[in-house]
């Protein structure tokens, strides 16, 4: 079976700094994968390589076996990849429904149907006609998520979805992501350990631009190296 998304020796270098250094990993259909690591581990840079915002300085990215390393973000999105950025990226001047309706689809009626369904799936159907710029932070996160899921992508990539959320909201987000996972493969880039615990699936740990380990959540949390990384001790 070919994996959905694979990277091979991905490297991203900024001047003298190597932010991502030879990362190879594979995401399978229907998988829910967490990428964790302390600040500066290279997670976000890796995310931007996956989404086409950065062009990696070495290595390759494959989508169902096809090389997509050189594609621009819009072309990657068109393959069926939904992308949510860390800071909510929205159309503040539009209503939630109008914004979600902008997703690509076959017809206007289809767009509206899908948009409404996406909003309802995320429990914000009531906000459909509210101006996005006037919504609270948590609601904005959900609107953005609705834009991501509306085209029903095969894979969703989320960058720190719980940033700025309360504990309660974080737990709810974890439930939501597990539920979305029933239909989409998901990659979550996160550094909030509590959130990862709540999701509890396969975890890839980044450290200094490389993959430190990749295993089930339980094993990863039990590993002393991971604890050291998060507490800032150097890895021997």
């Amino acid at each position, binding site marked *: 079976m070919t994996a959905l998304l694979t990277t091979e020796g991905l490297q991203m270098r900024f001047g003298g700094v190597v932010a991502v250094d030879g990362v190879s990993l594979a995401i399978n259909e229907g998988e829910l994968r967490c990428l964790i690591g302390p600040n500066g581990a290279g997670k976000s840079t890796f995310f931007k390589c996956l*989404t086409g915002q950065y062009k990696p300085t070495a290595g390759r990215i494959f989508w169902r076996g096809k090389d997509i390393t050189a594609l621009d973000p*819009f072309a990657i999105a068109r393959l069926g990849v939904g992308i949510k950025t860390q800071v909510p990226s929205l159309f*503040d001047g539009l209503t939630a429904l109008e914004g979600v309706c902008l997703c*690509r689809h076959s017809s206007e009626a289809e767009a509206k149907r899908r948009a409404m369904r996406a909003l309802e799936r995320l429990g914000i159907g009531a906000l459909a006609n509210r101006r996005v710029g006037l919504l609270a932070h948590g609601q904005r996160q959900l609107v*953005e998520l609705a834009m991501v899921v509306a085209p029903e992508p095969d894979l969703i990539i989320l960058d720190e979805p719980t940033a700025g959320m309360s504990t309660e909201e974080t737990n709810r987000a974890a439930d939501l992501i597990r539920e979305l996972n029933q239909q989409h493969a998901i990659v979550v880039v996160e550094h909030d350990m509590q959130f990862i615990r709540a999701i509890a699936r396969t975890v890839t740990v980044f450290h200094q631009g490389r993959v430190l380990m990749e295993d089930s959540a339980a094993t990863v949390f039990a590993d002393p190296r991971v604890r050291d990384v998060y507490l800032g001790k150097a890895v021997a």
Partner: protein
Amino acid sequence: MTVNVRTALQIVAALIVAGLAAWLLPQYLELFTLINATVFVSMGLLALSLGLIWGFGGILCFGQTAFFGIGGYTYAVAAINFGDTTWAVPLALLVPTAVAAALGYLMFFGRISDVYMGVITLTTTLILFKFANSTAGDQWTIGTAPLGGFNGIPGTPPLNFPLDPSNQLAPEQVFVVAVLALGICYAVAKLILRTRFGRVAVAIKENELRAELLGYDVRLHKLGLFAIGGFMAGLAGILFANCVFVSPTMFSLSYAGQVIIWVLVGGIGTLVGPVIGCMLIQALTTYAGTLSAIDPNLLLGVLFMLAVVVVPKGLLPTATTILLRLMRRGEP
């Protein structure tokens, strides 16, 4: 739904106003005033073209006059050579559109920033200005049309009825054509903004990254809108050539600056605003020109600075806000 109704009403209203103006004004205005009014209308179309791409596409074009001038010059040269304006008009629409597309390709596909875009477009029009100024003399003829350097082409032929070169339009008829062109372009712009292409273009202005992550090719949408702006500016140039004549002034820094002022004063993010702003400021500078105590450039410059500092949103949006506030206060 309500948005569609409102768009439809605005379009109908604009077409009615244009129709009334085309019908009534030629009956009441003196010829000289009517020709001046035609100039205003052609400038209004130029303002509309910039209002569309800047206000709704976020494209910072400081040299919209480049397409205005190219449209005018192409029209004049083609009309002189063909001896008939029937095919000169489509050619004079095609050339500025193509130039806008080519320039847009280089700018948008290079993904250069706003500041650079402003400078590149401004420089383009300034260099065209210099080029047009340097075309005095016999070696600068295209076919049978001398470009005329600083003096331009005073003998720019007026429009004729299609395929009937001997039957030229009278100034009154040119005015009617200009007013209808402005009304139709406004309607077309409104309609474009309601299509998916238009809504995506507006979305790109709001948030380029999000539009891109939704799978839209940002560069292509900007290019398309920019080319449409070039088309409308070219049409404005043809109309201008019909009531004045083409000369390097069409490319000049002062014209390029004026278009920006019209849009700024009228209000970025509206389509009527820039046209109104254009009419007001044109009227003001024309009046100042008759005073001769104040240099029109000084007046324009001061207005420009005031527009940026005092009413950055533009007159129309500011006036609307104030009006709404007053109306709300009036309610019990």
